[in-house]
């Protein structure tokens, strides 16, 4: 049995997808690692002084600077002759898509020897479910509310994986917490490569999504089975693989699980289905 390096006793909500995802990530990465964590749910639930859920070296600095802190850790290790310890960033979608976006681009462009794992639960959950640029179209959050004039987030989701890959880094991949073997496979693959590696990890948030905690993992599978979320791989800027879910399920099966989408009209759902269908052109 592989040792747990992100251990129980943390303060994550029931059904939290990110807590499960960290177990998956850390089991794949192993002990020879330094974790650099951005402010957010992951940090708040795991490191309240004097407790810590991390059995590996761990640093949290600020919200927006985690890629640069990781660059500093990585450069210091290599400069002092350590060429083996992996540096793994763990940051949410807010830290990655929004406030740390410039620092992320800088780290990727420099091709620093860092594995960046973004757990994407599609909003600022820790602070009360505010919209981020990872929040999907129409989703209700506390800053993209459903009112008489505006109904949910007017914008779509920023294509962060494609943006990361466009830096022509050696490896960029997306996965989902519902597929632990895929998570492990991609982390292991990333570990065998030097330079900047980016892993986008879809993680559920029952609290923020209005999702039954018992269906947390089911949702992270359904988003793949419906084709809304692609588990893809890019090497040096080019797509080299994508997981094909077979006959895709209707997007409605995923959407109807969550109260953040309960105001969607049949026309809205049809529009999402159409966009998902179009996104698979040439891939199936």
């Amino acid at each position, binding site marked *: 049995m592989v040792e747990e390096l992100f251990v129980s006793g943390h303060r994550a909500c029931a059904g939290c997808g990110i807590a499960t995802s960290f177990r998956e990530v850390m089991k794949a990465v192993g002990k020879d690692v330094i974790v650099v964590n951005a402010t957010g749910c992951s940090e708040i639930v795991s490191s309240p*002084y004097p407790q810590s859920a*991390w059995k590996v070296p761990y640093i949290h600095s600020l919200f927006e600077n985690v890629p640069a802190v990781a660059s500093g850790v990585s450069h210091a290790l290599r400069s002092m002759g350590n060429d083996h310890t992996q540096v793994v960033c763990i940051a949410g979608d807010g830290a990655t898509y929004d406030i740390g976006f410039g620092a992320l681009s800088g780290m990727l462009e420099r091709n620093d020897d860092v594995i960046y794992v973004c757990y994407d639960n599609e909003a600022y959950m820790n602070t009360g479910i505010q919209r981020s640029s990872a929040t999907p179209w129409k989703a209700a959050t506390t800053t993209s509310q459903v009112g008489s004039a505006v109904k949910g987030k007017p914008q779509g989701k920023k294509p962060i994986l494609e943006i990361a890959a466009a830096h022509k880094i050696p490896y960029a991949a997306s996965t989902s917490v519902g597929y632990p073997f895929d998570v492990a496979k991609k982390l292991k693959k990333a570990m065998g490569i030097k330079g900047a590696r980016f892993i986008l990890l879809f993680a559920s948030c029952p609290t923020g999504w209005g999702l039954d905690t018992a269906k947390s993992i089911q949702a992270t599978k359904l988003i793949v089975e419906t084709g809304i979320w692609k588990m893809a791989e890019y090497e040096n800027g080019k797509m080299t693989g994508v997981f094909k879910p077979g006959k895709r399920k209707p997007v409605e099966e995923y959407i109807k699980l969550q109260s953040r989408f309960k105001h969607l009209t049949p026309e809205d759902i049809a529009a999402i289905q159409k966009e998902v269908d179009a996104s698979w052109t040439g891939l199936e």
Partner: protein
Amino acid sequence: MKKTIEGSEAMAETVQNCNPDVVACFPITPSTHIAEDLDHIYSNGGIRDFIPVESELSAISALIGASATGGRSFSTTSSQGLALMHEALFNAAGMRLSPVMVVANRALSAPLNIWNDHQDSVSERDSGWLQLFCETNQEACDAIPQAFKIAESIAIPVMVCVDGFYLTHAVEQVDVPDKELIAKYLPKFSPKVKLDSQNPITMGAYAFPSDYQDFRKDLFDDLNNSKADIMRAHDEWAKLTGRKYGNGLFEGYRLEDAEFVFLGMGSVMGNAKEAVDRMRAKGEKVGALKLRSFRPFPGEELAKAIAGKKVAVFEKAISLGGDAPIYTELTTAALEFHPNVVISSFIGGLGGKDVTVEVVVQVLQKIKGQEPLKEWV
């Protein structure tokens, strides 16, 4: 070895000779040559690492990561760049890390202005960094190894503050401390705790109300107590090189029997000393006092040094909506320790406005009256 060299280049060579593990710089406008010179050194194998980051916030953040990993880490910046680092400056100090920065002091926008004043560093006085201000490029080069020694021994980061242009772009004779000399002075950086996969620890945990204030008080106390560490680092360097700057906290010039004193920081003190000499030649009992350590502020020691005198505090920084920072702190210290002084506040030199010997003479003439003054010059 003494050589004729630009200040920026002399400081870059000194940093090289301190054997840093990680250097991270962003060359914002305004910039000095320090970053370029360090990259030149890196490109020729003179330092092991140079991260060309995409912003100053990332520069200081890289230093946070490097220092937490046990690496000797250095950056340099100015004005807007330092302001952009603001959040991370507090974080580096709060995490008790040991990076060193040279801040080439320059004015803050708006209006945009690239020239010297002290508003950038002074505005970061509460960030938890030590701030050592330098009068000359020699003093700056001497302060850099001291800064590493202090920062790494007490786990508090240090800013070496040098006047933009007046020092960074000045070509003059400097005895750049060489590798052998610095190796004798500066021990290997071995922090008590660091990120190490053989010995996992958690750094940067968040603290509840029950603990947060205790962490802040620890840092507060250690920063105040660092006066002794600054003086010790200064004295040890003086023993090796013969170069000393007062007691390491401040330096008096013809101060003892002076009745009227010009107190300031940085390169303006060169002109201040010249002004004192000219006035002394005419029999006037004037002196100068150069503040080297702005953080920690040596209030009690300063108050003792100026007891019974009339003092003009000359500042290249302001506090909008309040009195000037050094004036405020010196007045408080005098009230507490030696109330028999008359302290006046002079603001000048903002955004590169020239502070000539004549300006210093005028300031010293003005404080001869009974009432303290508050003026812009």
